[in-house]
């Protein structure tokens, strides 16, 4: 469980215009039957890619990209961590979009993939830039909460708590949580359903 500081990501971007891309589309359910995440990147958008000859993920112009620009409510639906795992293992290190689904955002944080939120106009501009000039090198700056290319600088929102954790390299929360185990026991003992009326079966 190595954890690292995440400050800046520089590279090309895959544009994924369209809202409400759910996790069933990112990683169809049949790929959830593996007991490891190994190779899950092969499932990334696989049904969609099969039926879409010019899918952005397959477009050679975007080969080697390490970020993705997405629309509203990206990652909705199923809680499957397979979706962010597939993105990460495919090489996507950061996503910038209009909004993200709650559980998906939590999963991205847990595995160290920052999410940036920008206005629909700004995201459309980024998507257009990546579509029209796919060789563009974008910089996502976590500290200053910006994404930039050429002279253009766009502000993004990164949830403050997560931003701090990425910069400090403490986004792998497990060590933090384990450090408080004595307090966990205290809180457990203070809860009526743990101590006061627990049924025998528990």
């Amino acid at each position, binding site marked *: 469980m190595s954890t690292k500081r995440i400050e800046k990501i520089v590279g090309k971007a895959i544009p994924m215009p*369209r809202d409400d891309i759910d996790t069933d589309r990112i990683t169809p359910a049949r790929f959830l039957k593996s007991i490891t995440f190994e190779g899950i990147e092969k499932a990334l958008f696989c049904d969609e890619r099969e039926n879409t000859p010019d899918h952005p993920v397959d477009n050679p112009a975007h080969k080697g990209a390490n970020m993705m620009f997405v629309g509203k*409510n990206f990652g909705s639906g*199923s809680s499957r961590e397979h979706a962010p795992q597939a993105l990460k293992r495919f090489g996507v290190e950061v996503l910038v979009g209009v909004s993200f689904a*709650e559980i998906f955002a*939590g999963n991205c944080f847990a595995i160290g993939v920052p999410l940036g939120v920008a206005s629909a106009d700004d995201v459309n501009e980024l998507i257009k830039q990546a579509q029209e000039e796919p060789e563009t090198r974008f910089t996502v700056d976590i500290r200053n909460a910006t994404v930039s290319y050429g002279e253009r600088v766009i502000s993004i929102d990164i949830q403050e708590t997560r931003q701090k954790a990425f910069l400090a390299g403490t986004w792998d*929360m497990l060590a933090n*949580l384990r450090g408080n185990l004595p307090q966990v026991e205290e809180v457990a003992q203070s809860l009526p359903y743990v101590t006061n009326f627990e049924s025998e079966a528990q």
Partner: protein
Amino acid sequence: MSKNTLYDKVWDSHTVAKLDSGQDQIFIGLHLIHEVTTPQAFGMLKEIGSGVAFPGRTIGTVDHIIPTLSQIRPYEDEQAEKMMAALEQNVNEFGVRFLHLDSGKQGIVHVIGPELGLSQPGMTIACGDSHTSTHGAMGSLGFGIGTTEVGHVLATQTLALNRLKVKRIEVTGALGPGVTPKDVTLRVIHDLGIKGGLGFAYEYGGDVFDTMSMEGRMTVCNMSIEGGARIGYVNPDETTFEYLEGREFSPEGEAWERGLAYWRDIASGDDAEYDDVYEIAGESIEPMVTWGINPGHSVGISQPLPEVGSFAGEDRKTAEHGYDFMDLRPGESILGTKVDVAFLGSCTNSRISDLREGARLLKGNKVHPGVRMLVVPGSQQVKQQAEEEGLHEIFNEAGAEWREAGCSMCLGMNPDKLVGAERSISTSNRNFIGRQGSPRGRTHLGSPAVVVSSAIAGCIADPREMGEQA
């Protein structure tokens, strides 16, 4: 900021620490686990040499991959077999209680939690499945988590979380004939949108919820996540307590009285403040059915399909995509759309009341010859109860397939799948492209009543027009 709601009270009493990140470390009262989202999490425990911190607060079952026809081992699907074996080994190795197939208590986690009295008011409940919001019906805070977070709960019984805002959804008055909790939840998602709940917990209340059964509340809370809300709950009341009394894991005797005191106390106060309130008149809700590719794409069953122009911005593109994929046209009626498959089941609608409703409407009728109908109970106990009541005979006589408990055709992880471009009418919760196992398969969501009326007619049909039965 919300104040003195059930959400606030439970959150505060379960806060272990403020983390450096600014997040809250929250104690998890009940951790439900299943085969799909745990193998990597147990792998993580092994990697760091940790055990399960509170094995007594963790309980497992198997639901997603389980075949509902033949459950003889080894399963035909090698991957499913491997996944099952991994879970069996992990629960053994880590000392976690496991409700296996031979327990008589196996089932979909969100069905068995309330059914066994495991899910209780004032608890935090987490599970590696987004429909954990179901348990909010018990007056608890239930929410879905990813696999890394499952590892966090196993190792520490806590999670690092951001506090949500609270939106009160008030459904006033009463529901009309043939209108069910499923229609209420589809209407909420229709009105507030599938992104409307982002950053919110939904508190459901008002006359309609006050008089709704526990199983109905579960159906509504189940689909909170489809509206973007990770959590949805109903305050505990006499209906809740009546449901809980006598269940296997419910407290008994004096402990029951102590439980009642806590549960009454944990409900939102009269002076509770909300970040937002949304009101719907119960009388205005029709049986709902989805026409598109997300649960917000729904329409009152007698209404014409919405014009694409009624959607703004990017939503318009999604709607166009929806019409194109579903091969439907704006302005037309959804009634009469031919269906190939009817599915009565899933964590949304597979409880005994759902099966009773389905059997009541199906009795004396036949499933249309062009339709394959699956009826899949949510748990072994639901199955047993239904068989004691003779419901399975009604389903079989009508030409439906009566199956073993599991997630079945809600998602393509087990042998129950749509084939090719088949069109289904389904009591499940997601009409996403590919969700029911075929990349070209088309899903319409509706209540058990809509599914049965459509199964009989061979096309989407209004249950209110089934004569006296409805």
